[in-house]
């Protein structure tokens, strides 16, 4: 597998969304510097939580979104910056299957019309005719085959003509006049007849019946509709499909059949897949390699089996551990605390540092594991609050120094499992040096300076994780992982997780 040519090279791809507001503001960094290769004929799985940018990545590769920066190279062409004829060529080579078949099929069109639409849009077919010598090819709907293009019609030097099996017409449907200094090809089959045949063939190929041609999407079950979506994506004989969670909207009983169909089609047609999903077990089944995305970055990339059995990155470990029933392989469940931070304002340093179970901690404080987590959480709460849009009332309150004291107190009470002492203050069961930092930060927050509070916490408890942005490290066997713990001076992530969570 590893010798296969890369079909697609994604290089430092970025997609930022500006709200176009007058104030500018921070853009949403949906995809932020992603690089990987997709090899010819493989399935690359792309997993991650909702909102991590995996769908945006797929759409940007297909040029449905304009890339902010970076390249997507296919056959040495950057497909993010093409237009006109080149773009149309790319569109016929790369297609997308959407998540929700009900939403992606126009319900006022029959299935036949839906599958036929790409053919009409590209004025299909345009047959590639291969000629032995360098004579010109003339005629309607034909062109001279170039490069490694698949030959639909082959004209020998002695005038023998053969038609590729599976082409939309047979030998009887065309006459070839190769007498002069050019080859005249005349088709006797009408384009619309060829298209209709093609649609019927596609229906069969995806496991639907011919009588479904005149049905409407309403009349189909979810699985059947998704087959229609797949047939539409296949209509132009693409080489590459982006499958955007193609089974997550379907019943579990149907998912397996669609997955099998996709695998069969891949074998039969030699397709390359980018399979986007949040269901890890589906990805494990179908993907050859898997990329794990978090907040617009690829955290870990490697062959599926190896990533699943021996994750390198703490995020992958947490994700895998979140699969119900997977504890056998990964031991004690590691819960992913909270929700991912806003992609508008990702944490400095490592993106995952705010939730990381293997975060590097400063040595000078002797704080218990639970309290470290509480401190991380307190920090992210303050950060989120300082960035939140505030109403006029809040702003006025802040200016006047009237802050809801109770919210900060409640936060401390809840996170640190603390208790109020006699005179209404809060005491945290923590070594004094650490506790005093928390009190200082809380004081700042009460005065309305959440940003300052977050900074205070970061100063004291932050580490290299919140300062340095990790590079993708080669961790062997074609795997990369974006974690600072792969450096020599630190312990490996899984050892740390083992020690922190599974040592008792």
């Amino acid at each position, binding site marked *: 597998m590893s010798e296969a040519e890369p079909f697609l090279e994604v290089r430092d791809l970025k997609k930022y969304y500006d709200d176009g507001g007058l104030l500018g503001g921070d853009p949403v960094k949906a995809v932020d510097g992603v690089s990987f290769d997709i090899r010819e004929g493989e399935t690359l799985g792309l997993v991650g939580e909702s909102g991590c940018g995996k769908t945006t990545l797929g759409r940007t590769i297909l040029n449905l979104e304009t890339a902010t920066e970076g390249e997507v190279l296919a056959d040495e062409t950057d497909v993010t910056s093409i237009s006109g004829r080149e773009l149309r060529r790319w569109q016929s080579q790369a297609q997308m299957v*959407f998540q929700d078949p009900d939403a992606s*099929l126009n*319900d*006022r069109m029959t299935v036949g019309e839906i599958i036929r639409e*790409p053919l009409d*849009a590209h004025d299909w077919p345009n047959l590639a005719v291969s000629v032995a010598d360098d004579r010109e090819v003339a005629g309607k709907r034909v062109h001279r085959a170039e490069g490694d293009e698949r030959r639909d019609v082959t004209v020998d030097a002695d005038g023998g003509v053969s038609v590729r099996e599976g082409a939309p017409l047979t030998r009887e449907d065309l006459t070839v006049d190769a007498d002069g200094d050019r080859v005249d090809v005349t088709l006797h089959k009408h384009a619309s007849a060829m298209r209709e045949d093609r649609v019927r063939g596609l229906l069969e190929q995806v496991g639907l019946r011919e009588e479904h*041609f*005149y049905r409407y999407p309403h009349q189909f079950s979810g699985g059947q509709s998704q087959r229609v979506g797949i047939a539409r994506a296949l209509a132009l004989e693409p080489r590459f499909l982006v499958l955007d969670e193609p089974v997550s909207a379907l019943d579990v009983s149907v998912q397996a059949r669609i997955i099998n169909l996709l695998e069969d089609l891949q074998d039969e047609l030699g397709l390359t897949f980018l399979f986007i999903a949040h269901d890890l077990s589906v990805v494990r089944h179908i993907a050859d390699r898997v990329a794990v995305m978090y907040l617009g970055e690829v955290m870990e990339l490697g062959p599926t089996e190896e990533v699943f059995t021996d994750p390198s990155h703490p995020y992958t470990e947490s994700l895998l551990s979140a699969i119900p029933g997977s504890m056998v392989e990964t031991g004690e469940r590691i819960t992913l605390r909270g929700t991912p931070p806003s992609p508008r304002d990702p944490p400095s340093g490592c993106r995952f540092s705010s939730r990381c179970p293997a975060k590097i901690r400063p040595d000078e404080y002797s704080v218990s594991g639970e309290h470290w987590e509480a401190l991380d959480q307190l920090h992210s709460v303050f950060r989120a609050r300082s960035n939140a849009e505030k109403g006029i009332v809040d702003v006025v309150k802040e200016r006047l120094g009237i802050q809801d004291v109770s919210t900060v107190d409640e936060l401390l009470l809840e996170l640190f499992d603390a208790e109020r002492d006699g005179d209404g203050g809060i005491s945290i069961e923590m070594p004094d040096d650490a506790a005093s930092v928390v009190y200082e930060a809380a004081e700042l927050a009460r005065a309305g300076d959440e940003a300052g509070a977050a900074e205070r916490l970061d100063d004291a408890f932050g580490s290299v994780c919140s300062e340095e942005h990790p590079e993708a490290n080669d961790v062997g066997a074609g795997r990369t992982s974006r974690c600072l713990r792969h450096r020599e001076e630190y312990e490996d992530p899984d050892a740390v997780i083992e020690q922190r969570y599974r040592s008792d």
Partner: protein
Amino acid sequence: MSVTTSRVADALTDGRTALWALVGLLLFLLEAGAFLNFVVGLTIDGILALPGVDAAGFLTTVESAVREIPTLLSRETIPNEGYYDGSGYEGTFLGLSPAIAWALRATLVYLYAFAAFGWGVWGYRIYRRNYRAADWTPRDDVFDRFRGHKWGIFGLVIVFMFVTMAVFAPALGPTTVDQNMRNSYGYETKYWDSDSGSVETILVGDANLDSLSQGNDQNIGPWTYDDYGRFHPFGTMQDGSDLFTFLVVGSRISLVIGVLSVALSASIAATLALTSAYYKGRVDLSMVLISDAVMAMPQLLLLIMLTTVLRETWINEVYSGGFLLALIFAFTGWTYMWRSIRGPALQISEREWIDAARSFGQTPITIMRKHMLPYVTGYLLIYGSMTLGGAIISIAGLSYLGLGVAPPTPEWGRAVNLGQDYVRTGSWHISLIPGILITLVVTGFNALGDGIRDAIDPQSDSAGGETAGAGGGA
């Protein structure tokens, strides 16, 4: 190609379809003369309109030949204008009284129209059951829902009767506009003079002067004869001409202006709404600004100003100024329709199938036409039918104010205006009948719009949802 041919052959050998085709042919033959007459007349007009052509040559002969073809629903086949010669009626259909002859013709016209409509529905059902490749389409549900919508059906019937009135206007009136109003001194009429006991001849204009409806002393009310044996289903007007003829011909101009202006503004609105919904952002914003600017112009003042300014120009000559009115209505009216359609269009533009179409490289125009327009047409029909009602009111209102359609072209609003001095007298019918008709037709168009809306979108609440509010304002 061969598939279609064999289909036609199949259809004709199938009993029910053959019967349907036969009935259609029969219905056509009954009116073939009128139809050919219309086509030939239009061709001649078209040829004469070309520069440098002043005679249509052989077509004129064709026209006169076509005129000879008998049609069922014409004044010549069932005449109602005759006179009493002391013992019986001369010149009327089968010697019936003029009232009965006229009523017979009017009834036949409506029977014919409803038969033609039924024939169309019958054909659609045969097609749907036997010939359509798809055994179900989303449109079927819409039709089925509309069929069960009583208020919508009521609207459809009213609108259909109104359209029939406009189409068959010349055949429906007891007399013609030319003979009774425009050129009343160019025609003669015969009547039975009971004093002398003989049949006398009088100019129509003079007869009209003796048939005025101007209050309690002088009045020819609805469903009465005047002194010259002429029947007036709706009575006469203040100048003695026939009110029914006036109204029937007036319905034509209302319908033409209404349909023209609504069709124009609907196509402007749809094009702009789809463009702004597809491209969003700046395109959308600029259209909002343009439509706000147009909306801010006072429509009535603009109308008065433009009709005055353009009074002497050729554009005001077209269709007695009706064309100009339609243009002004379309120009000021599209904004409201655009506003109403923009919302649904924006919603549709967010659907995933738009992305799917973009992903395989479909062109923006085709995406708008194939993937967005079908979802907006329903709204266009709803707002169109409601706006049409509004346009009819506006045209009538303008004529009432003495603006708009130039006299003497009949227009409903002018009838209301002409009769308003006599509302409290015995000649109440001059204002009241056209007033009732306007109300009825506008209600019909609104009911039809309601019905279409409920058929298209069953979730919308007919008891005053958002669309209903917007529709009422449009």
